[in-house]
């Protein structure tokens, strides 16, 4: 088993709806080139898409860090933004603070964070109000 590790960083800007989906698409292409299993790629792509949309909708900006090794894919989404006052509530399926405009665009179903957790083998979130939110997740290679 090789121990090769590989890191890439991506920046996401808040309110940039036009650019949204760029990072998840890039990461998906990258994982494909590296040769991860289809299912691993799918789970990472869905989770990163949701994380990216959360940044676009709610945060000012974020740095997404991708770490790859043969064991799996590790993602950190570290944003500067309003933070989440009650994480337990935010994790509930169906709970959303999306605006009417976001809902009209098909966002705000309250499925973002639950979708990330569902597609990850490890998941952690921490947040500080008026500072930012950090979401970490790992998808094991299989």
């Amino acid at each position, binding site marked *: 088993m090789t121990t090769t590790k590989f890191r890439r960083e991506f920046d996401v800007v808040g309110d940039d*709806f*036009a650019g*949204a*989906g*760029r990072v*998840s*698409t890039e990461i*998906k292409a990258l994982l494909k080139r590296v040769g991860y299993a289809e299912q691993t790629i*799918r789970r990472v*792509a*869905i989770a990163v*898409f*949701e994380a990216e*949309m959360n940044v676009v909708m709610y945060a000012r900006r974020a740095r997404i860090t991708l770490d790859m090794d043969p064991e799996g894919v590790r993602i950190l989404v570290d944003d500067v933004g309003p933070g989440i006052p009650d994480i337990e509530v935010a994790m509930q399926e169906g709970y959303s603070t999306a605006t009417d405009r976001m809902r009209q*665009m*098909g*966002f705000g*179903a309250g*499925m*973002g964070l639950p*979708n990330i957790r*569902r*597609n990850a083998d490890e998941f952690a979130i921490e947040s500080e109000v008026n500072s930012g939110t950090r979401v970490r997740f790992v998808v094991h290679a299989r």
Partner: protein
Amino acid sequence: MTLREVVERLGLKVCCGGEHLEREVTGGYAGDLLSDVVANSQEGDIWITLQAHENAVAVASLRDLAGIVFVGGREPDEDTARRASARGIPLLSSSQRTFELIGRLLEVGVPTGRV
């Protein structure tokens, strides 16, 4: 069944991506909540939605969907069409509403894509 056959039999308008119509449609998915579609659609699906904007293109590209059909006569703006072309996602438009359109798709033999 190829996307071209679907387009011809249902009289869909091809807004962009006409060069990718030979792709096989292996199933279908309908939905307007992007989180639902990104989580539950399957590769090769034709996606029926009213979300005619660029984030829909991102979802289709991410899940390798065969194409998107916008219902109720909705059509993508130029930026959205450009983005879809760049990613090889055909954007189609139908004057029908979701319910009738899905009925027609099943009638002409588009598989549901699920066992």
